[in-house]
């Protein structure tokens, strides 16, 4: 077991433990904080894979921006430990959770071969030095990342962006409606 392995197990434990504590804490503010710990540990796992750009994006977007927004909303609504309603669809959420976990396990077994990481069908990830200017190879280099995003994966990006825009417009329309109907008009 070398240093990288120890770090991997440390951050893996931290991310899974943070996730568990998140769903188990009664108060939403500690839950959000545990989620931040979990997200930052996942970013650390990305660093161990030498995917620095992905790690930074993880911290910048999720831990830095989305979670600040979550905390802002939680604090603005002042949700306490007894503030939320008890969910009446516990069975459904439990089933959904089991289903997602099952799919995850099946996918992992499918792609990695059973228990052997070497014989699996993972695509080899190249480091920046190995790529040596070839922009189309699958690598951790920032330039290749951008090149792939804006050529091969252009359509998925546009679709995702369009979906997000639609969601945003939808939220604005919904919240506006409730405002005007409650107003004096």
């Amino acid at each position, binding site marked *: 077991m070398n240093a990288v392995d120890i770090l991997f197990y440390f951050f893996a434990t931290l991310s899974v433990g943070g996730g568990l504590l998140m769903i188990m804490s009664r108060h939403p503010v500690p839950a959000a*904080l545990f989620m931040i710990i979990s997200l930052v540990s996942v970013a650390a796992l990305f660093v161990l894979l030498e995917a*620095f750009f992905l790690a930074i994006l993880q911290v910048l977007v999720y831990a830095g921006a989305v979670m600040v927004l979550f905390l802002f909303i939680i*604090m603005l609504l002042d949700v306490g430990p007894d503030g939320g309603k008890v969910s009446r669809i516990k069975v459904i959420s439990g089933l959904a959770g089991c289903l997602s976990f099952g799919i995850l396990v099946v996918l992992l077994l499918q792609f990695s071969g059973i228990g052997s990481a070497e014989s699996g069908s993972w695509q080899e990830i190249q480091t920046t030095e190995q790529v040596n200017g070839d922009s189309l190879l699958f690598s951790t280099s920032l330039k290749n990342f951008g090149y792939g995003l804006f050529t091969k994966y252009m359509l998925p990006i546009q679709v995702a962006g369009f979906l997000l825009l639609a969601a945003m417009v939808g939220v604005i329309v919904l919240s506006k409606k409730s405002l005007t109907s409650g107003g004096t008009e």
Partner: protein
Amino acid sequence: MFDFDMLLMVGLKFLFALLMIGAVMTMAGYSVLAERKVSAWMQGRVGPNRTVLPFIVHIPFVGKFLKGLGMFQPLADGLKFLFKEEMIPGHVNKLYYNLAPIVALVPALTTMTVLPFGEFFAEDGRTIPLMLANLEVGILFVLAVSSLGVYGIVLAGWSSNSKYPFLGGIRSSAQMISYELAMGLSLLPIFLWVSEPGTGAMGLSLVDIVNSQNDRAWLLLVQPLSALIFLIALFAETNRLPFDMPESETDLVGGFHTEYGGFKFGIFFVAEYAHIVVGSAIFTVIFLGGWHFLPWIADPWPATWVGTLLGIGWFLAKTIFLIFFFIWVRWTIPRFRYDQVMNLGWTKLLPLALLNLIFYVLLVTWLDQPTA
């Protein structure tokens, strides 16, 4: 089993990191003194001029001069924070209350790992930038880590279980979300400009940005609007007046640190100034040419260790001027109202940053088209 070279490498990195923290913390401490001295000067007062170490005061001229400058005031302030009673109010959430100052300080000190502050001229003609870690995504690292600093304030506000700190925490998170977008967008044109084909600059490295400004125009002169937006967002991110919504003492008592005292308050205080020091250094690196001499003029110093030292000195001079600028603005411009801050962020800075980005995209495309 022990690899001596490995141990030496790790040990050296550790030592450099300690030195860097020492340097930044010293600068943060003396920024506090500078704040008091500059504000006194602007208001026609004298400022701290009594504190002195017992044996230094007897040195003729020098002792009196240092006493007048208040050079030992930071030491006295630090000791005061250290020896005060550590009060923990009864109504706070103890774990998070104690955690908050640490969460505030750690990101402020972590951003300096990717901060280049000079260059070393090797014997074979190469130049090696002086920094702790040369990341390809340096500036993104700074943005990411500094955005984590807000959790210290939010946590302090929430765990205090008291109205004013709570308001401070909410304001701080809202302000963070509003100004981070403008800050990120104001930096994009910089990278478009720096990574033009043929310059060799590839990623988002801070070193490439500095070197692109060597004996050419500073980016402040090339992209004044980006610099202005970045500077305003920097003021907002460091919670400096006119943007110190989280602690505005006229309407929130002390804001997020109302319930804090003693050393824990001191940590918040130092974290704020460390943010200012690192922020000034980042602005220097991106817009003011880093350790390079004036725009369009090549470095006048020789490419030896003398040049290294002069370059670092020049870099420090620019940074200290920017710290002075932060203080200057604080004692000149009154505080915004909260709605004005939100207005400025969302309806003025963000569209301006977007337009700025579009303009430079078009400009860079036009400049880069092959001359057939």
